[in-house]
């Protein structure tokens, strides 16, 4: 059942948070009679007015038997005394306990709110940091551009080296071919000359040359003997 409690969102401040609950309830004297009754009678009858009214009413009810005294009266008296004793003795403790429960609830809600606020603040800080980082974008791109330029340069130089090596290999091949050809020609010519010379040495010439050699050797041995 919806008890039409404090009017919600009926005032001008539609979007404001709810006003907090009042701290204390209306003043009540002896736990039964609101203070307004005493204030209502005060101008006409002073301070003792309500008490006189109460006493008069009580005596009237008793005497006219509008309120009869029977077993229920005794029961009511006992129950009331027990209740009043319990309230007077344990009221403060119960109130403290209830207050503690309330406190815990409020503290939990507050903790959630503070958590949320802290998280949002860290998010704001991180956002600011990201914005600061954005400023460094130009340096990043410069570095990247440098990297790419270096890569291109390296690649270009590698290819240049390859070209150079290939060309050198071809030229070396040509040079080696020419050298080989000349070598072969030389060898062949020497061989041919030797062959012809050996062929041209007749037996007569051979004998003459051998005799000459022997004479020479003798002369040499003589001169060697004379020297030693």
């Amino acid at each position, binding site marked *: 059942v919806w008890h039409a409690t404090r009017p919600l969102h009926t005032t001008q401040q539609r979007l404001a948070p709810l006003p907090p609950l009042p701290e204390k309830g209306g003043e*009540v004297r002896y736990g039964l009679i609101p203070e307004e009754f005493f204030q209502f009678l005060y101008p006409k009858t002073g301070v003792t007015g309500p008490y006189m009214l109460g006493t008069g009413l009580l005596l009237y009810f008793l005497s006219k038997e509008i309120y009869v005294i*029977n077993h229920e009266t005794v029961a009511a008296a006992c129950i009331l005394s027990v209740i009043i004793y319990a309230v007077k003795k344990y009221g403060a403790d119960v*109130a403290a306990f209830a207050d503690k429960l309330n406190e815990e609830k409020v503290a939990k809600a507050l903790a959630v709110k503070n958590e949320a606020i802290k998280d949002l603040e860290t998010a704001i800080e991180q956002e600011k940091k990201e914005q600061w980082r954005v400023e460094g974008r130009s340096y990043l791109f410069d570095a990247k551009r440098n990297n790419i330029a270096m890569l291109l340069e390296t690649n270009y130089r590698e290819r240049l080296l390859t070209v150079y090596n290939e060309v050198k290999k071809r030229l070396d091949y040509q040079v080696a071919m020419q050298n080989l050809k000349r070598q072969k020609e030389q060898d062949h010519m020497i061989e041919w000359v030797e062959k012809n010379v050996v062929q041209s040495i007749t037996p007569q010439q051979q004998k003459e040359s051998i005799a000459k050699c022997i004479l020479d050797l003798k002369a040499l041995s003589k001169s060697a003997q004379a020297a030693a």
Partner: protein
Amino acid sequence: GPLSERRLMDVRLGELPTWLATCDFSPQGLLGGVQKAWSGYYNKYINVKRGGPAGISMLLAGYCLLSYGWNYQHISKIAFLGIC
């Protein structure tokens, strides 16, 4: 202000019948009146941060009085017959 919009406490004794005449006694009107009275009582004595025994004690006292009133005939007869 005009008579029909004043609350009961603000009406003078002589104007009471006319004020009663301006009241709305249809079922919705009565229900609205009951709701207003209950909400006024609730917000004043029960829906507070640090209430006391006053909130329910007044309700219980009212209940006691009402039930005594309803059973008065029965009680008065019994008392008459019991105390001989």
